């Protein structure tokens, strides 16, 4: 049992790394994608839109396989699996975050920009001090949902043989002919998402002071 827990923690370590690395890159990159999606230049808009549609319209598991095997078949180049995994997750999650950011930005009242302009704020000041804090509050619940999904989606990395939590649980399970490892892994996922939900809850409550 102790050994099992130890193995699962090692798997958990991979899951957590996928989780944080994905967020680290996709949260900011999603913003770049959102900007592209709202670009004044039509081709930029089309390309980012196509990218978003593909990322949201095809299964993540398929994208994982694609990002790992395509370079291999096309260029006969192989590269680190873990890198392929992170690349796939980042590109996938950026598309989802981009759409959340875009809807948040577009729901901002035009009057906030106009009041800022009349008062003499620069564009950058307006964005960082007036628009961003309000958009942040508005999109927080949707971002929270996406992050909860990401916790569960890390298990898909097992398709590329990454020894993350789910894969470890699955292999131990078949080795010891028991569902216990699967069950314990489930508890791990549950706890992670409990923490994620709590985190968003706290932040949302901190921002409750205004409407």
């Amino acid at each position, binding site marked *: 049992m102790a050994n099992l827990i130890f193995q699962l923690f090692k798997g958990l370590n991979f899951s957590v790394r996928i989780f944080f690395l994905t967020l680290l890159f996709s949260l900011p990159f999603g913003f770049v994608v959102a900007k592209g999606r709202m670009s004044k230049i039509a081709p930029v808009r089309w390309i980012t839109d196509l990218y978003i549609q593909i990322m949201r319209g095809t299964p993540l598991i398929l994208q994982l396989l694609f990002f790992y095997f395509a370079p291999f078949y096309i260029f006969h180049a192989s590269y680190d699996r873990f890198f392929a995994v992170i690349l796939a997750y980042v590109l996938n999650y950026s598309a989802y975050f981009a759409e959340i950011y875009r809807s948040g930005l577009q729901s901002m009242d035009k009057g906030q920009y106009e009041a800022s302009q*009349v008062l003499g704020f620069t564009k950058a000041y307006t964005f960082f*001090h007036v628009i961003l804090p309000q958009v942040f509050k508005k999109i927080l619940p949707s971002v929270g949902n996406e992050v909860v999904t990401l916790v569960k989606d890390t298990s898909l990395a097992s398709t590329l043989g990454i020894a993350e939590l789910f894969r470890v649980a699955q292999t131990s399970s078949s080795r010891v002919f028991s569902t216990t490892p699967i069950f314990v892994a489930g508890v791990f996922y549950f706890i992670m998402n409990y923490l994620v939900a709590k985190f968003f809850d706290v932040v949302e409550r901190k921002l409750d002071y205004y409407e």
Partner: protein
Amino acid sequence: MNDIMINAKNIMKSFGSTEVLKDISFTLEKGHVLSIIGPSGSGKSTLLRILTQLETADAGSLELVGKPLFTNVDGKAVYENIAQRRELNLKTGLVFQNFNLFPHFSVLRNITEAQRAVLKRDKDEAEAKAMDLLKKMNLADKAKSYPCELSGGQKQRVSIARALAMDPEILFFDEPTSALDPELTLEVLKVIRGLAEEKMTMVVVTHEMNFAKGSSDEALFMDGGVIVEKGNPTELFDNPKEERLRRFLNTFNA
């Protein structure tokens, strides 16, 4: 010393193929209050937005506080450089119909933010100024509140304080009471009347005919993108020359 605060000549503006302002010319003296009245869609807001640089004019010329914002060159409005535009932007303030307060800032911060970020005043100075204005608006006890906790009339008074904190030389109002209940309308109009007594130069787009008639030095009636009639408010209301103005005023008396 130039006492003409606004000198607008032949201003034109179209959105696509619709001509919204056709040929707007008027002047306003320092310390005067000008009311602009007119039916919906006549171009009143568009005019204010050009004067406050939220829109750009297509043609014509405009001087604010004696300095050009744009001049007519070959039938086109050519704007001054960014430094001049910014200088004039700081000399004008605008109060919106729907307040546009910053919901994530306290009342106090709504009034101090631009003082600090734009005018580079220090915290104490900005707050002292804000508190003075809040007292004047009878809202000193609301400094720590958030906009969502205020009534419409209170919000509008905060937004007036926010504009005044920047020490504008001309203050524009676009239907400042149209989003308010009648009782709240009165408290806001009282504040604007108080500013008029202090000789603040103001342009007020309004549907409050009593205010336009009783509290302004000049009035201007717009319809279809042109100034149909302008002059002394008492004259304009009691003795309208133009048929269109007469019909417009009748809709209020009915």
